[in-house]
């Protein structure tokens, strides 16, 4: 076998391979002998069909089949010999395919780019430093109270933020119109869930009041026959309720898992949660920047086949997010939407893999176990989760690549200049949020694909 490689571009290769005629013909003959045993032909008993007849009938098919197999085989040997590292599948075309002549074929493929890792030294990375102070905790508790607020009937005029329970009936001129009527509707004033003007005019009503409200439907109202019309609503108020925030007492605290209702403990718990959240956000943000810096420092060409694979994956994810169901044909989604993102993900994945290789980063079993245990803490039965993870080779690998990635990012951070930036709790969370929306959703996956 003879093979020669042409480099057509940075990552594209053309491999021309020649296979001696004798080898091909021998393989064809052997295959024909096999087929002859199983051929059923009218006029012949099975296995008694003469070779000449078999050859005449099946010769071409068998040859094509054999040639296809030979090409695949020799392609593999060829790339091993030439030590190419192909990304995705090659396209193989025979150029000479005749019996008695040497078989020749051309395989076009793309190889993984050879990466010479440029260090990201000098690039600046902002690390938000946020401390959770007492005010933040108070605010968080306030939010929690609001989420658990109850409505309590009060005997006073309704003000903004109050909830009123009303019957109403709407008229256009003197005619009642469809959909303009409800009984016992609960409406929060200031929630802007009604036509503009409606809620405002309800301010000041008391329980058992009856009043009339005149509003003009906005021009762009969704019901066309009402848009821009002036309408009168007869409203009967049943009840005015004020929002009653729950007291921060033992009862309230218990809801959040602090059994003995100790307020100090509750504060501690809230603080712990918030700190964890901030930590995660900060980690994410830093990682993001590190990867971004890495990508900017190393502009590597990306094999199209990898991009296609990634695009496919992204499409499927998107389809899932939109709830399109399993049988949705993802090829309907336009590639262009995802190509850019796919490319950057593949780049990051390749680069990270390279970082891992260069720095000889590895994860020991102990480290994997520790990580799994950490993950398992979030579940109800940690032991079962741990067992599940450690038993399943695939899950274990996932965990491993996550660890590798973490370590790789740490290595990157050692190179870069990390600048601490003071931020409040809110800002830190927001900053991390923004970046996440913009760029990535999970490059854990990209990295694990490649390692």
């Amino acid at each position: 076998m003879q093979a020669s490689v042409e480099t057509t571009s940075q990552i594209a290769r053309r491999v021309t391979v020649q296979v001696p005629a004798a080898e091909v013909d021998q393989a064809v003959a052997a295959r024909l002998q096999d087929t002859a045993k199983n051929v059923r032909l009218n006029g012949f008993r099975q296995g008694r069909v003469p070779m000449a007849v078999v050859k005449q009938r099946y010769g071409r098919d068998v040859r094509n089949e054999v040639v296809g197999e030979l090409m695949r085989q020799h392609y593999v040997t060829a790339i091993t010999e030439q030590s190419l590292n192909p990304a995705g599948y090659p396209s193989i075309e025979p150029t000479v395919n005749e019996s008695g002549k040497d078989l020749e074929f051309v395989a076009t493929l793309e190889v993984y780019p050879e990466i010479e890792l440029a260090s990201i030294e000098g690039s600046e990375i902002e690390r938000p430093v946020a401390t959770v102070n007492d005010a933040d905790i108070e605010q968080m508790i306030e939010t929690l109270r609001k989420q658990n607020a109850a409505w309590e009937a009060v005997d006073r005029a309704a003000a903004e933020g109050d909830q009123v329970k009303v019957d109403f009936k709407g008229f256009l001129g003197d005619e009642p119109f469809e959909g303009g009527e409800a009984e016992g509707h609960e409406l929060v004033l200031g929630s802007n869930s009604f036509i503009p003007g409606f809620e405002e005019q309800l301010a000041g009503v008391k329980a058992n009041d009856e009043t009339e409200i005149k509003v003009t439907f906005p021009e762009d109202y969704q019901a066309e026959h009402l848009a821009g019309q002036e309408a009168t609503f007869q409203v009967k108020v049943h009840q005015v309720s004020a929002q009653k925030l729950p007291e921060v007492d033992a009862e309230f605290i218990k809801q959040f898992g602090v059994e003995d209702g100790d307020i100090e403990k509750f504060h501690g718990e809230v603080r712990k949660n918030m700190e964890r959240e901030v930590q995660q956000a900060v980690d994410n943000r830093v990682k993001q920047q590190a990867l971004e810096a890495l990508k900017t420092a190393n502009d590597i060409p990306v094999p199209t086949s990898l991009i296609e694979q990634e695009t496919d994956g992204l499409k499927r994810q998107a389809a899932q997010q939109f709830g399109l169901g399993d049988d949705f044909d993802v090829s309907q989604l336009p590639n262009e939407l995802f190509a850019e993102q796919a490319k950057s993900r593949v780049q990051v994945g390749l680069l990270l893999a390279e970082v891992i290789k260069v720095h000889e980063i590895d994860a020991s079993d102990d480290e994997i176990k520790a990580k799994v245990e950490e993950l398992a803490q979030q579940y109800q039965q940690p032991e079962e989760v741990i067992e599940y993870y450690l038993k399943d080779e695939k899950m274990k690998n996932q965990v491993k690549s996550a660890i590798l990635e973490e370590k790789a990012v740490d290595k990157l951070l050692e190179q870069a200049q990390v600048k601490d930036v003071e931020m409040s709790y809110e800002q830190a969370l927001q900053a991390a949020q923004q970046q996440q929306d913009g760029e990535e959703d999970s490059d854990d996956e990209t990295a694990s694909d490649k390692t």
Partner: protein
Amino acid sequence: MNQERLFKVLLGPHMTEKAAFAAENNQYVFKVASDATKPEIKKAVEALFDKKVDRVQVLNMKGKTKRTAHGVGMRKGYRKAYVTLAAGETLEDFSGAE
């Protein structure tokens, strides 16, 4: 014999184990029209395959009798010809004929 008749004489190749063995002895087996004669067949083969024919042997194959619920039936028979080519002539691509 006119040209038209030539194309009507040979109905097709007859490929069986026996015919395959016969082919080794330069004899090729055809199904032929039931009223075809030896000289006709000889001429037809010589014209269509462009080979010299030594001699022709013919026989009538009787159809098998088949019994069904509706009584006894006969399958169609056919006329078969063993065509011996002159020494040195061979017919390749035999099963592809007409």
